[in-house]
Each structure stands twice: as structure tokens, then as C-alpha cells.
């Protein structure tokens, strides 16, 4: 089974190629190609993961090319971490394929959409299987390309076009960091191989400063892809893509790539205390910052997007606080419940044809399946006990506390409270109360989505509940035992902090839910209570802390200013030089053409002078040139 694991990414690639060939086909049954092939990937991934569970592992490589004495290799590697990622990615990808069959029904470029999905899944699976940084980087860029194509799928919408470009450019900033880190590592280690890098790091062959620098450069790459604080702005805008894409990109794949990168390079980070602290601080700040924006958004998908940013912040916080298992655990559970939430949101949008939550309401009775499933997702992400989010979030909080990062711990608790609040604000506004939607003429009644869409949601709903039991103190820590077999040496020590931590976390989430209930369901508290109390603050939050505007004022203005300078330089200096050269050549040519005037006499004169000179030379030197 393991020897064949290189086939896993090739199935989606095959699907991509086949669907490109059939893209003109009007029949929507082409979608089954994608579904079937990603299904095969899923089956194989599960098989591989089970084999790894039993303690196996594989690494196969061949030399790609030789630079001097150093061989650059290509191949694939299966270890506990990436086997788990394989299952998550292929599972979500498979379910999204299935869901898209219903969601994209009737779209003009139906086949192309599935082709892009295939390409994206291929890139992500390839990224996970890579045994060295160089190969990872190539797939990393492919993931970027796939996301660009998918986010900009509705390319005729200017917002989608802008969002696609933004996603590409913003993540590219991170990619440059990753690239620099990679080159630094190659310089220091002489290899892109994870194993060799880790061995060198362990031997202490790299100076501390260099270690921190490389770790931070690589973290910049993760920041870009995972939408962490300074580079997060692309992620909410990426909601312009079709909803299944949001589920795929923002739940399990692209944004998880950044977390995966940090996890895969974990020994490097472990070797540098400063780098770990930076990771934790960035993660913690992102968590609370994005959660605060989520409180005020009106677009259902944007709320979920900010929630994703916030949850990714949690994962980074966990990794930075030596909670390796906690981070991966949250990555796993988050993949399930966030994919569920996105798909449920897609189902809602599919039913009511709007994304503004102010225009929804009272959908609980009309969407008998989507409603409960959304509720499960919301409960899970809020960290209500017994659902998956509770366990993983609790573990993150515990490891943060155990690591002695008390400030970040309280930030995370507040973020958990906010998460619960905005998720249930969303839930109450969308599913309860009166229908606020004005019915347009000729619009069909609100109806439940077809079963091809609800089935993936049910699967994810089940997983969102049970995935938490992978790693609990009650039934056993399967996940951490499993991950401990990997190449990464897990930080030792008891991460199960004081008993009161789960209580605090539960209290925070229940408080959030309760507050949302009071405001949006019962109406006990007026909805604009906060807005009126702190007008300035809520304004800032509603406008996403003016980050986009800030970038506009600084980076965009700066760049355009620089380009204007460049244009001036081009116009006056470069063009001036060019004109000088052309006029010089023209003048020279004019002199030449004056010589060639067609007068036989002047030619004769020139010839005579030539002969005279030659004769003079012969006479003076007394012979030929010697």
C-alpha cells in the first residue's frame, strides 16, 4: 500500500487532465470523473494512514539532478503527520467535489470548475507528500495557482478578479519569505531534505541567530498561506469564489498548508525559542484580531472567513506554545467543522440567493437538514463540550498555559468567547426569527438542497462531532501517540494544565452563545447596544481595523509613487539615452552618406590619397609592413 502512495496526488491530476479535455461537454455527468478519482485518492489515503497507524512509514527518492556534489532529489515520504494530512485533504476534497455537483449545477463552465478542483487537490496532496523543501515549494506555488484560478472562477465579476489577484499577490509575499528561508537552509545544510536539515539542526551545526532567521523566513511563508496577521487580508476577499471553493481552500487545504509547513519543519522551530515565541504571538494576535472583525460582518461567508483566520491563529498559537499535537489536532477538527460550516452556508446561499445575513432569517423550518448541521458546526467551533472543537481548543489553551504564555492564554480565551458569539449571532440571524427576505418576483420558494449536497454535509457533521475523540484525556490520546511515531520529537511535559482550564473555556463559549441569544434571539439587549456604547471602536472593527485602507495608503500608494518615479526615470533618463544613441548613429550615417556622393572625382581623390599614403609608408619603412 505504502509503495503506491505516490499515486494519491496523481488521481486528481488525471481528473484535471480528463476534465480539461471534456470541458466543452454540456453533460454534467463529467463531474463524476472528478468525484470518482478523488474518491480513489481518499480510499488510498485512508489505506496509507491505517498502514502508518500500524507503525509503518516509507520514504522513496531518486536523484533529480546533480549540482556539483550535491544531489537534488525528488520522491515521496509518508510519515504520521502527512498521512493524516492526506486523509484530511482527500476527504474534504472528495466531499467538496460531490457537493459541487449540486452547487454548481447549471453553471456554464461546470467542467472547468471540476478541472480546477482537481488541479488544486493534486497540488495540495503533492505538497503534503513532498520529502524535501524544494519539492514542497513547487507544489506550494501550484497551490497558489490553483487558488488563484478557483477564487477568480467568476472572472467576469470585477470583485472576484480583484480577489484572485489579491490572494495571489499577498501569498506571494509569504512565498518570498519561504524561498529565502529555503535558500538559507540549503546554504547552511547543503540539502533540501527534511531529515538532513533536522539532523544538522540537532547537531547544533547552525548558529542560533541563523536558526532563528531561517525559521522566521519559513514562518513568513506560513503567514502568507495561512492568512496570519499582517498578510491575512486576502483570505476574506477570497470569499468571492464559489462557496465549495471556500470550503476547500479555507477549511482543509490551502490555509492548512501554512500550518502544515510549520508542523513539518517543527524541529527547526523547536531549536529556536525566539522563533517559537514569534509564532505564538502572531497566532494569538491573529486569533483575537480576526475574531473581533467577525463580530460585525454582515456577509455570511465573510464571518466564516474571519473565523477561519482566527482559528488558524489558534493553530499557530498552539504550535508556538510547544503544543505540536494540539495544533495538528485543531487543524484536523477545524478542517471538518469549518468545511461543514462553509458547505452549510453554501446550502443557505443556494436556497435564498443572498449572502447578507440581514436578509435571511427563519430558515430553520425551511431547511430541515442544513439548519441542524449548521448548528452542529457552530457548536463545534464554539467549543461546546463533547463536540470536536471543545477538545482541540481545550488542548491549545492547556498547552499555552503550560508553556507559561499567560497573556496569550487569556487572549485565546477572549477569542473563544468572541468565536462563540459571532457563530451564534450568525446562527440566530440566519435560522431563527422572522424571514426578513423580500421575495422577488419569479423567485422560487426556499427549498432544501439536493441530496448530493446534503450528503457531504452529513458526513462532515458526523466527523465534526466525533473527530474530537481522537485525542482526549478520557478515552486515550490516540492522536498524540500516533504523531509521536513521526520524525518530529514531540516536546515532553504534561500539557494538561490545571483542571479549571476546560471550565474557563466552556464558560467563555457558553457566555458567548448566551450573549448572542440575548441580543439576536430574545432581543433583551438591543442590537445596537455595543455600537452605541463604543461608536468609535465598533466603527473601526466594522471596517476591519482599516487594514486594507492602511495597506492602500502605505504599500499601494508607495508602490504607485515609486512606479511614477520609475516612469519619469524611464521617460527622461532612459529615453534620453536612447535618443542620444539614435541621433549619434544618424549623424554618423549622414557623414558616411556625404562621403558616398556619387562623384567619381571625389572617389578618385580618396583613392589617390590612399595610394600616396601607402607609398609613403613603403618609402619610409623601406619595404612592406614588417
Amino acid at each position, binding site marked *: 500500500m505504502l509503495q503506491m502512495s505516490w499515486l494519491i496526488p496523481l488521481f486528481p491530476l488525471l481528473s484535471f487532465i480528463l476534465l480539461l479535455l471534456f470541458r466543452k461537454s454540456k453533460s454534467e455527468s463529467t463531474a463524476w470523473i472528478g468525484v470518482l478519482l478523488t474518491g480513489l485518492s481518499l480510499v488510498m489515503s485512508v489505506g496509507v494512514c491505517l498502514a502508518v497507524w500500524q507503525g509503518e512509514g516509507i520514504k522513496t527518492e531518486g536523484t533529480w539532478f546533480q549540482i556539483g556534489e550535491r544531489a537534488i532529489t525528488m520522491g515521496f515520504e509518508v510519515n504520521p503527520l502527512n498521512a493524516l494530512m492526506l486523509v484530511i485533504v482527500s476527504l474534504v476534497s472528495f466531499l467538496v467535489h460531490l457537493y459541487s455537483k449540486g452547487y454548481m449545477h447549471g453553471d456554464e463552465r461546470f467542467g472547468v470548475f471540476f478541472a480546477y478542483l482537481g488541479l488544486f487537490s493534486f497540488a495540495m496532496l503533492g505538497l503534503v507528500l513532498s520529502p524535501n523543501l524544494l519539492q514542497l515549494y513547487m507544489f506550494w506555488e501550484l497551490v497558489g495557482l490553483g487558488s488563484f484560478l478557483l477564487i477568480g472562477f467568476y472572472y467576469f465579476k470585477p470583485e472576484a478578479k480583484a480577489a484572485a489577484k489579491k490572494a495571489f499577490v499577498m501569498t506571494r509575499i509569504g512565498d518570498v519569505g519561504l524561498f529565502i528561508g529555503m535558500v538559507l537552509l540549503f546554504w547552511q545544510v547543503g540539502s533540501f531534505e527534511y531529515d538532513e536539515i533536522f539532523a544538522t539542526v540537532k547537531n547544533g551545526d547552525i548558529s542560533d541567530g541563523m536558526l532563528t532567521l531561517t525559521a522566521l523566513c519559513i514562518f513568513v511563508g506560513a503567514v502568507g498561506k495561512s492568512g496570519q496577521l499582517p498578510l491575512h487580508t486576502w483570505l476574506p476577499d477570497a470569499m468571492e469564489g464559489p462557496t465549495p471553493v471556500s470550503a476547500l481552500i479555507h477549511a482543509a487545504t490551502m490555509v492548512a498548508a501554512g500550518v502544515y509547513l510549520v508542523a513539518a519543519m517543527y524541529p527547526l522551530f523547536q531549536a529556536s525559542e525566539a522563533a517559537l515565541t514569534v509564532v505564538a504571538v502572531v497566532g494569538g494576535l491573529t486569533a483575537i484580531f480576526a475574531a473581533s472583525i467577525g463580530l460585525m460582518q454582515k456577509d455570511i461567508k465573510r464571518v466564516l472567513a474571519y473565523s477561519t483566520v482566527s482559528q488558524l491563529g489558534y493553530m499557530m498559537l498552539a504550535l508556538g506554545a510547544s503544543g505540536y499535537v494540539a495544533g495538528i489536532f485543531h487543524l484536523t477538527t477545524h478542517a471538518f467543522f469549518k468545511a461543514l460550516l462553509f458547505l452549510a452556508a453554501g446550502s443557505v446561499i443556494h436556497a435564498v440567493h443572498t449572502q447578507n445575513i440581514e436578509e435571511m432569517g427563519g430558515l430553520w423550518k425551511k431547511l430541515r437538514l442544513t439548519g441542524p448541521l449548521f448548528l452542529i458546526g457552530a457548536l463545534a467551533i464554539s467549543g461546546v463540550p463533547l463536540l470536536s472543537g471543545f477538545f482541540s481548543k481545550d488542548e491549545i489553551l492547556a498547552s499555552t498555559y503550560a508553556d507559561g504564555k499567560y497573556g496569550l492564554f487569556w487572549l485565546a480565551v477572549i477569542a473563544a468567547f468572541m468565536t462563540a458569539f459571532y457563530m451564534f449571532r450568525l446562527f440566530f440571524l440566519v435560522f431563527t426569527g422572522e424571514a426578513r427576505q423580500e421575495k422577488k418576483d419569479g423567485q422560487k420558494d426556499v427549498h432544501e438542497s439536493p441530496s448530493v449536497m446534503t450528503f457531504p454535509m452529513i458526513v462532515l457533521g458526523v466527523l465534526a462531532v466525533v473527530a474530537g475523540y481522537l485525542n482526549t484525556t478520557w478515552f486515550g490520546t490516540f492522536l498524540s501517540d500516533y504523531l509521536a511515531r513521526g520524525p518530529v520529537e514531540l516536546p515532553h511535559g504534561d500539557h494538561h494544565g490545571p483542571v479549571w482550564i476546560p471550565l474557563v473555556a466552556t464558560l467563555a463559549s457558553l457566555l458567548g452563545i448566551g450573549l448572542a441569544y440575548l441580543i439576536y434571539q430574545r432581543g433583551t439587549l438591543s442590537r445596537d447596544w455595543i455600537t452605541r456604547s463604543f461608536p468609535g471602536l465598533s466603527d473601526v472593527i466594522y471596517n476591519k481595523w482599516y487594514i486594507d485602507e492602511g495597506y492602500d495608503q502605505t504599500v499601494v500608494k508607495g508602490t504607485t509613487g515609486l512606479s511614477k518615479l520609475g516612469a519619469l526615470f524611464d521617460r527622461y533618463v532612459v529615453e534620453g539615452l536612447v535618443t542620444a544613441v539614435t541621433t549619434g548613429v544618424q549623424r554618423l550615417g549622414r557623414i558616411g552618406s556625404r562621403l*558616398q*556622393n*556619387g*562623384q*567619381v*572625382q571625389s572617389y*578618385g*581623390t580618396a583613392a*589617390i590619397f590612399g595610394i600616396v599614403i601607402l607609398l609613403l609608408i613603403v618609402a619610409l619603412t623601406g619595404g612592406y609592413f614588417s
Partner: protein
Amino acid sequence: MSSVPLAAYLMLALILFCIGLFGALTKRNAVIVLISIELMLNAVNINLVAFAKYSINPGMTGQIFSLFTITVAAAEAAVGLAILIALYRNRQTVNVDEMDTMKR
């Protein structure tokens, strides 16, 4: 019999050749140019005769050769004049400055 040295003949030929060359290169009138060319040819003839007489083993070869040259020069002058007349009929001028079709 002769006290005139070879150098004097050669000097004369040189002066004659230079006058001819100057005329051929500077004069505007094509007829004058032709005449100047004749001058240069005659300078050559003088050289031929002078060398024939003053060489290590004197003989008639050079003198007879110069006769041939004179004949050829006459033929050349005839052809040159013919071309000149044809040109004049075409262009109504014998000014060599205006004969610059090579340039166009």
C-alpha cells in the same frame, strides 16, 4: 650625345602626370577631364621612352610600346568623346558634378 639625365625626364613625366591628375580630379568640364587623362597618358609615354633609352640594355621595345599606347589613347579618346556626346544629348550638360547617378 645627351647630357640630359634620366631624372630630368622622369621629373618632367611626374609634373605632367600631376597636372593631369589634378585636372582629372578637379575640373568640372568633362572635356577638360578627358584632356587631363591624355596628359597623364603622355606622362607615362615619356617614362616609357626614357626608360627604353636609359636602361641597362637600351632597345626599341619601350618606344614601340609607347606608339601602341598613343594609338590606344587615341581610340580611348574617341570612345570617351562618343560617350560624352551621348551623355550631352541626354543631359544637356558636360558638368561632371551633375553626373551622380551612382548615388541615386
